């Protein structure tokens, strides 16, 4: 098959006088474009085209059944000045991100440090900490529902045995529902942890040996070698965590359905409700654009502010 494709690529019009090097280069270029053509088509339709179209739809009122009606900035005006639920969703999602990202980065780094030790059966431990990340989000949500179940769940069972007379109602309580989701998110931090682990394995051991010769203790080695050497991974995980947690959906959809009293109404859950339950697709597109801009601004802000503190290479 490879030979067939290779020989087809030779342009029929190529003249024998053309220099060999040039035609090889041109041939390689042609093949390269052919190889990436599925991506180009996919990008044009599903990313670039969709993004532009999404912007256009956000100026319309449409349920996809009756004809779409142009309303200018109507959706954005309603969102910013009339829709309390939008502000609630923005607040909930921001608080969630604020809780989840530092927690996942710090705990992920600590566990990665632990899993980087030369210890017997380390494969088993790595599996233990990564395993929850391969379980389906819905199944994970079910597990947490049962774990925090206020009447029969394990958490309140333990709390009762410890003598706590009035334990929280967790996802059924307006003040505890969001912290419950944040705690639950820690469980699935495997990928970030793995990136830290890979980063740790890339730090040359000689650096630690040299530091030991200079009399640096464990803590000093951690702050002066490990953290600076891992700064690209810390940045990567922070940004990916930020992007991911602003898009949180499954946990709030399955565990709390956004409740109680919208205490866990996240941006994407609200977008889903507007678009697919109340069939206001223009409004949902406007919400998506605002979400996109928020993520973009925070990502660029994180990238800029980290410029001086991230160390590449070495």
């Amino acid at each position, binding site marked *: 098959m*490879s030979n067939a494709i*290779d020989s087809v690529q030779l342009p029929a019009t190529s003249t024998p006088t053309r220099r060999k090097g040039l035609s090889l280069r041109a041939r*390689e*270029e042609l*093949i*390269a474009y052919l*190889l*990436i053509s*599925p*991506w180009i*088509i996919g*990008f044009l*339709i*599903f*990313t670039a*085209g*969709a*993004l532009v179209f999404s912007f256009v*739809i956000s100026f319309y009122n449409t349920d*996809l059944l009756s004809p779409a009606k142009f309303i200018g900035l109507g959706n954005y005006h309603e969102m910013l000045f009339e829709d309390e639920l939008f502000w609630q969703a923005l607040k909930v999602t921001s608080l969630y991100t604020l809780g989840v990202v530092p927690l996942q980065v710090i705990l992920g780094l600590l566990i990665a440090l*632990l899993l980087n030790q030369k*210890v017997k059966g380390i*494969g088993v431990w790595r*599996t*233990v*900490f990564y*395993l*929850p990340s*391969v379980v*389906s989000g*819905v*199944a994970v949500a079910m*597990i947490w*529902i*049962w*774990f925090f179940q206020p*009447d*029969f769940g*394990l958490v309140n*069972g333990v709390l*009762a045995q410890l003598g706590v007379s009035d334990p929280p109602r967790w996802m059924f309580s307006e003040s505890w529902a969001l912290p419950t989701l944040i705690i639950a998110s820690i469980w699935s931090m495997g990928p970030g942890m793995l990136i830290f*682990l890979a980063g740790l394995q890339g730090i040359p051991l000689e650096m630690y040996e040299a530091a030991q010769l200079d009399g640096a203790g464990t803590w000093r080695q951690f702050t002066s070698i490990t953290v600076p050497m891992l700064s*690209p991974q810390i940045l990567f995980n922070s940004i990916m965590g930020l*992007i991911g947690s*602003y898009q949180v*959906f*499954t946990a709030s959809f399955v565990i709390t359905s956004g409740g109680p009293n919208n205490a866990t109404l996240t941006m*994407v859950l609200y977008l*889903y409700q507007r*678009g*697919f339950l109340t069939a206001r*697709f223009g409004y*949902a*597109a406007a*919400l*998506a*654009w605002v979400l*996109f801009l928020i*993520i*973009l601004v925070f990502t660029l802000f994180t990238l800029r502010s980290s410029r001086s503190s991230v160390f590449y290479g070495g």
Partner: protein
Amino acid sequence: MTIVANLDREADRALRTKNWGLLTGRILIYLALLLGGLLFMLPALWMLSAAFKTMAEAQTFPPVWLPSHLEWSNFTQPFIDLPFAQFYRNTLFLTVANSLGVLLSCTPVAYAFARLNFRGREFLFVLVLATMMLPDQATLIPVYVFFTKLGWVNTFLPLIVPRYFATDAFIIFLMRQFFKTIPFDLDDACKIDGGGPITILLRIILPLSAPLMGVVMIFVFVGEWNAFFWPLIYLSSMENYTISLGLRLFETRYFVQMNTLMAMSLLASLPTVVIFFLAQRQFLKGIVLTGVNR
């Protein structure tokens, strides 16, 4: 002493040389692993225990860990109440079709970005990276409208077709990083023998990419098997449901039957857990090799 040496060589050395600092360090590492691991496994163990309990046993307070007998009907009853077997077939079909799509479409793209020279390469690759950061929701509504106009809603097509157009930017990125590490001398040798870029891809790059493909397969398989948001949006009739959708349906109908719900969650998680367990050594090794972090 030999027992300690069998358990941990460092600790043994510390004991022999009376290096108490090192010994304490080793003990602390094991304690932290044990405690952390236990804490991490607690929710899963709690699910496991409930999956075999009777309804009455699941609702005792204070809770008990071990069920008095194994209640296997928790695993069979849901298959009678709902077409769970169909949900599994659908999920398996989607997972296989999509994994194939991702591998077939992303490999050539990543190869071209990693090892071929063409005009606009850097610019186009920046676009790939930008797609990685783009939230799915930004393009959700128009893509949904597009598939509605095509009449594809409530079929598997909206879930499968985009996969064959290399829409998984992260996978392209991962593959490109790995392809770049393969020595270019091998390409030159192949070129001298008259091989073109496609021959190089098939004869040199792919055979050397086994660890990468292992990692990619796990990422894609796990992602597809567990997919929830997209099936939720596109699949509306029950005969098309995936396991995740089935679980959610089951929860809304039988939310008090936590024991059966846990049994179903266990069954839904089993395939990915088993695959990860079998491949974890290669997976973790491959992650380091692919240099996700660079």
